[in-house]
């Protein structure tokens, strides 16, 4: 429990005053809980002795009075403590999300969305239960326990010790079952994560599943995960089924011992019958704390197991940060000159380098094109510029400064990026285009960006135009519309560097031509890196680089490369040949 528990403390201590007040309320409530039976006792004693009407009225009023005071504190207790637990839940959830925001692309590629979601929902809930209700009830329980034992001690020390003889058994049981429940619960939560991930994937890929008649297979897969979840729960249920009654059982042993030994004491005349009866009464009082105790143990163990799972995210160390930022980096003008110096890059965890010894200089305002076979490393190369993945030190420079030394926000703010697979948010088209612009941008700028991307004619055909809300990931748009929205989004940022990763692959030739014509005007004042498979897209670039297996094997202008007769020329001929073949 140690370190994980220590990490929880700061969240709790932030509300220490409220916890202090709330716990005080618990104490008062418990005290009042213990007082009201006394009022009743006195009332009955008085009635037995023949009280007056006034006295009766007094007792009646006292009963209601005490209960009302108790009610006020009980109200405060719940309100304050459970309220504080909600505040902590809020803090933890924010911390969780804030940390997720700092985690780089690689982190998400190694994890499943369903799993992260499960931590943010199911596990957080278990943690809150531990902080709120469990703390409230355990305080109450412990108090009741202590008071009852105190009273018992005042009646008879020896009997009390006898009654408490099974206590070591209780603590062994709590310890054993506690850690067993903890372990089981961890594995259940892990399985719940798994289940979520299975659902998440099958639903996200629903079209593939349907197209290939894979529903039975997906159902079978889900069934297996579901059955495993039940199986793991079964073990937990068995533990719980043994744990709760075992506490009652041990308490019962105490009662038997008291009955057996205590009655002998009575017969020997060491204690009176009345004392014996009263003692037994208090022993009964212990049974509720015992039950609550088991319950609290359960919640605490679950809470801690879940908290550990949450900590795995909250305490994750972001790999891409502003740690290396220098003064020079902070003051960089960011004009858009890009340099790669002997860049060799391998994805962490997978051995062979994807990029090998790549050197490239792009002066500000130039347009550079990257072509190369599938998997040759084009996307990898450009992902290093905005530090989606971390380049080795001193290999990727912007305006002569290592990108690692430039604050992330400034760096990314200078780059307009159109990913190969664009992600849109389920929001209006206008909001998606304006995604990278932080102040209220004028509507006409948004329209201008849409016009460059040739999205305008499509959008104007929609009944709600730019206010059309797109589905999850932009699902209600056509492939080309999605791509062009992403393009407009990047242009809208008015960046120094524009990066297009195969950004026109889903666009027809005619529209592509229109877009390229407009882009040329846009790119005139900025550095642009264009990845494409079509010669038509890249031919006008100031520099064309051909990547092959992570190396730049050719570079130059279109005409030079064609004349040079290498890979590019071959590519060009192939594409040209196709067209000519068709024309003939």
């Amino acid at each position, binding site marked *: 429990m140690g370190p994980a528990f220590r990490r929880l403390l700061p969240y709790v201590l932030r509300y220490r005053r409220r916890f202090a007040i709330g716990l005080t309320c618990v104490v008062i409530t418990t005290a009042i809980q213990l007082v009201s039976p006394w009022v009743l006792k006195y*009332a*009955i004693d008085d009635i037995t002795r023949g009280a007056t009407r006034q006295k*009766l009225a007094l*007792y*009646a009023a006292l*009963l*209601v009075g005490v209960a009302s005071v108790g*009610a006020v504190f*009980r109200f405060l207790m*719940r309100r304050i403590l459970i309220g504080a637990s*909600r505040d902590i*839940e*809020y803090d933890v959830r924010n911390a969780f*999300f804030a940390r997720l925001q700092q985690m780089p692309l690689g982190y998400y*590629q190694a994890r*499943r969305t369903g799993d992260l*979601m499960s931590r943010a929902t199911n596990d957080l809930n278990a943690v809150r239960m531990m902080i709120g209700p469990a703390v409230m009830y355990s305080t109450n329980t412990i108090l009741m326990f202590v008071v009852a034992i105190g009273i018992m001690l005042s009646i008879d020390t020896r009997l009390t010790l006898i009654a408490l003889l099974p206590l070591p058994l209780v603590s062994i049981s709590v310890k054993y079952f506690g850690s067993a429940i903890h372990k089981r619960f961890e594995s259940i939560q892990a399985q719940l994560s798994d289940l*979520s991930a299975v659902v*998440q*994937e099958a*639903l996200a890929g*629903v*079209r593939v599943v349907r197209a*290939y*008649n894979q529903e*039975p297979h*997906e*159902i079978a897969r889900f069934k297996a995960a579901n059955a495993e979840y039940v199986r793991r729960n*079964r073990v937990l*249920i068995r533990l719980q*089924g043994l744990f*709760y*009654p*075992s506490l009652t059982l041990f308490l*019962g*042993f105490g009662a*038997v011992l008291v*009955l057996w030994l205590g*009655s*002998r004491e*009575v*017969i020997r005349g060491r204690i009176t*019958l009345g004392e*014996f009866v009263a003692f037994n009464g208090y022993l009964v009082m212990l049974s509720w704390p015992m039950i609550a105790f088991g319950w609290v143990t359960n919640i605490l163990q679950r809470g801690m197991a879940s908290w550990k799972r949450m900590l795995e995210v909250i305490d994750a160390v972001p790999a891409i940060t502003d740690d290396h930022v220098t003064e020079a980096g902070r003051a960089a003008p960011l004009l858009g000159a890009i340099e790669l110096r002997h860049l060799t890059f391998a994805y962490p965890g997978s051995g062979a380098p994807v990029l090998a010894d790549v050197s490239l200089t792009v002066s500000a305002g130039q347009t550079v094109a990257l072509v190369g076979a599938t998997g040759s490393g084009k*996307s*990898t190369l450009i992902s290093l510029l905005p530090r989606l993945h971390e380049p080795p030190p001193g290999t990727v420079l912007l305006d002569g400064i290592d990108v690692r030394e430039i604050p992330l*926000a400034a760096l*990314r703010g200078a780059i307009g990026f159109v*990913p190969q697979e664009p*992600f849109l948010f389920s929001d209006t088209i206008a909001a998606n285009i304006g995604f990278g612009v932080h102040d209220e941008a004028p509507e006409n700028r948004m329209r201008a960006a849409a016009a460059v991307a040739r999205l305008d004619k499509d959008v104007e055909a*929609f009944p709600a135009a730019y206010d059309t809300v797109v*589905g*999850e990931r932009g699902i*209600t748009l056509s492939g080309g519309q999605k791509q062009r929205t992403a393009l407009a989004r990047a242009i809208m940022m008015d960046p120094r560097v524009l990066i297009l990763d195969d950004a026109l692959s889903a666009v*027809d030739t005619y529209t592509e*031509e229109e877009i390229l014509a407009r882009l040329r005007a846009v790119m005139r004042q900025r550095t642009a890196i264009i990845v494409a498979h079509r*010669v038509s897209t890249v*031919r006008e670039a100031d520099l064309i680089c051909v990547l092959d297996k992570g190396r730049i094997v050719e570079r130059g202008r279109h005409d030079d490369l064609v004349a040079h007769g290498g890979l590019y020329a071959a*590519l060009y001929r192939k594409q040209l040949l196709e*067209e000519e073949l068709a024309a003939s």
Partner: protein
Amino acid sequence: MSIHDEEILGKAYDARLMRRLLTYLRPYTRHVALALAAIISASVLQLSQPYLMKLAIDRYIATGDLHGLNRIAMAFVAILFAAFALDYIQTWTLQMTGQRIMFDLRMQVYGHLQRLDLQFYDRNPVGRLMTRVTTDVDVLNDMFTSGVVSIFGDVFTLLGIMIVLITMDWRLALVAFSVLPLIVIVTQWFRRNVRESYRTVRTWIARINAFLQEHITGMPTVQLFRRERRAYERFDGINRAHRDANVDSIFYYAVFYPLVEVVGALASALIIWYGGGWTLQGTIAIGSLVAFLLYSQRFFRPISDMSEKFNVLQAAMASSERIFKLLDTPVQITSGLGARGSGLGSQERPMLRATHAPSARPDAGEGHIAFEQVSFAYNPGEYVLRDVSFEVRPGERLGIVGATGAGKSTLINLLLRFYDVTEGRILIDGRDVRDMELAEVRRLFSLVLQDVHLFSGTIADNIRLGERSIDDERVRRAAQAVHADRFVQALPLGYASPVAERGATLSVGQKQLLSFARALAFNPRVLVLDEATSSVDTETELLIRDALHVLMAGRTTIAIAHRLSTIQDMDKILVLHKGQLRESGRHQDLLAQRGIYYKLYQLQYRDQDVG
């Protein structure tokens, strides 16, 4: 209302929901009966303990009978163990029944999700649907395990106490019961408010989940566009609203429990006042008064207990309402009634049939496809396709071109019955697809979607999906045909290499190749390619095209492409423009028409020519 919002819940019809929920108990009546029996026996044993104590005191301590005391102690121990066993049985049967019911319910929800129309998926974010299958079902579990059964117990206790009180002294019983209207009022107030606030809480939870889901999947985009602060602020806003809604609902709980206790104290006070008075007058015995007080306290405990469970019930009702709503969402696209051998209600069991059907049957049927005056609108009134007619003969190769957004992918969506036509009809071998079995229609086709989707698992899993009849050799051959074999072999584990969610660690072209390989591995009658090589380099594309010539010889191919070169040697080319079929024919015919296709072609050709 954005699609993130949980549907606003209708009026709670608790009774109806409850009845429907209880039907899930039906297969497990025996288990529930066993649990109930265990609960009742346990409480009898519980009650016998004071009696044993009384026996010990009255009989044996008074007489100093040590043997008797020993016997009592033995009996006590026996009872303790019996109670232990009963408790265990009760927990075990009850919770396991809960688990089994949850298992059933989850399977039912998930099975339904596997049948629901794609239109439904357009409107419902995955995050929300996940909540249905996981969290909502778990909430119901709480009810089955802690709520329902013990509430029955509570009700019996209440009735029992009322009977005892009335038989003891009906006047005093009336006095005690006089506070009941107060209880009713308080409870009503509580129920009304808690229900309201619980709904608000649920709405916010759903928004948190949808927001998280979307931002976890789109985090790289958030970071690239430096939206972290804004996203955080929005998240903070939702999170805060969720907290505040919760704090509001705490208020009702915090007021309710103490209030019930005060009312209970009021009852005690009344009993003291009236009962005490009557005792003084001698019309009631002091013993009865004491008993009355004790019982009346017992009376209020189940009431506040029951409201504690109300919490659970409330949550369960809200969850079940949403689950049932999902289960009640009708499936529009189902196997047709004229489907072959559909003896069983085709609406009900397409899943089962699909399970038993062999998967790849390339020679099933001829595969003659005809669109007859097909019009289609995703949203009523907004036509995306208008009056499209064409046919594809078996073995023919069809190309579809057209500007982006023209409706090409939509055509495919209709062909595979992801959606149903709004007007007109689609015939396969002369039969309306709506009359055919769904699996039968889809089995004809292999589809490479424009948006590639890979699952986490291995490379081989992604090619063969769940189809065990596709052996490793076939997987490899399919991969070889699309030239994916090379890069797969280069991976450390080859075809057994793990694939991340959505194939995140592969290049986009590689993903496309894998999904192409998948289509070939299924050995379809008709291959449908929606921009299947858009992210693949020219060399590989040409190689694939050559391979297809051989592989798909004699079989139908339908290909959508923007690069005219990809489709120009097809048997027939359709030119789609703004949802209408404007031209169709062979490449040369289309060029001769000097229409849209000609213009498109000019553009590409001129472009090449300049170099």
